[in-house]
């Protein structure tokens, strides 16, 4: 199905690049608009560099710039920063988080939403974001619900959810995806300092993007 507008909902700058970066680039390069709702600025990110190039107080500003750079590379020209704080999404008033995502859905009327599979995100922010997104869609009349593609990263994902029903080889947009990942310099620089052998594994891992269509 040709999408008319794709909404991506993730909690941290770099989730969009590491996760569905190749898929996003495929959509934008074929002229389909992509909106990214990014819930936090990754304020509690751990990678500070050796020697450190950021501290707890300067990291959010740095990551905000990196996020804008990565979005430009991926062709995302509608970036919404929702202003929640890293590590706290699950503790927010759930109804408010759902409402803030639903507002964007009602505004842009996406045909497809990409988010984390609730319960299979490993990071609590991922699960809370996936849950709020799925619930926002559930509140829509059945006929108006967009398709929801979820990323699942727990080790038991296939045992619990079965095989992913959407598997994409993103070789065509791999260079864009890697450039977007690299744009998140503060968090990803160390990864690209690995040995060439590890880099081959990294590239193979990044080439396949898997999604589970959420069944309401």
């Amino acid at each position, binding site marked *: 199905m040709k999408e008319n507008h794709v909404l991506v909902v993730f909690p941290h700058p770099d989730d969009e690049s590491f996760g569905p970066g190749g898929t996003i680039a495929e959509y934008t390069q074929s002229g389909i608009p992509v909106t990214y709702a990014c819930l936090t600025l990754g304020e*509690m990110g*751990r*990678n*500070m*560099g*050796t*020697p*450190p190039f950021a*501290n*707890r*107080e300067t990291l959010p500003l740095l990551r905000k710039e990196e996020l804008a750079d990565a979005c430009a590379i991926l062709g995302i020209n509608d970036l919404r920063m929702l202003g929640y704080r890293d*590590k706290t999404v699950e503790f927010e008033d759930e109804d408010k988080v759902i409402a803030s995502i639903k507002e964007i859905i009602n505004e842009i009327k996406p045909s497809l939403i990409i988010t984390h599979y609730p319960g299979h995100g*490993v*990071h*609590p*922010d991922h699960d809370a974001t996936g849950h709020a997104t799925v619930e926002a869609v559930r509140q829509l009349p059945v006929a108006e619900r967009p398709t929801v593609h979820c990323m699942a*990263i*727990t*080790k038991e994902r296939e045992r619990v959810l079965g095989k992913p029903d959407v598997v994409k080889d993103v070789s065509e947009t791999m260079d864009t995806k890697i450039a977007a990942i690299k744009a998140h310099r503060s968090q990803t620089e*160390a990864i690209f300092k690995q040995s060439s052998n590890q880099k081959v594994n990294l590239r193979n891992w990044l080439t396949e993007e898997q999604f589970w269509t959420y069944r309401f």
Partner: protein
Amino acid sequence: MKPIIVDQVEELLNNFKDKPIYLHLETTNGAYAAHRNEGMMTVSAFIRNGKIQFSHGKITGSHPYRVGLKLEDGWVYAQGLTDWEVTSDGQILLAGHDSEGRIAISLQLSEKPFN
């Protein structure tokens, strides 16, 4: 941030003593700790803009360092601190980074709330 210089850190810590100050204290082994290594438990805690008042502060150890702040009714304690910085607002930022540059602990004091 730069490697900790004990004398300078201790002097600055004690500029904050006997007045109400804002504390950021954090420790983490990363949200994916147990995902990457099943023998590990994912643990982290942070308090941001907790208000405290201490009567004296001390830094001890030798890279990494430990800081203790004596409160009227208790203590603030942090272990594993390696680097420090003073911001233009006079906030003192202390952090412990591992060999790969990942923050594992942070202790920060400010007269105004952190953003």
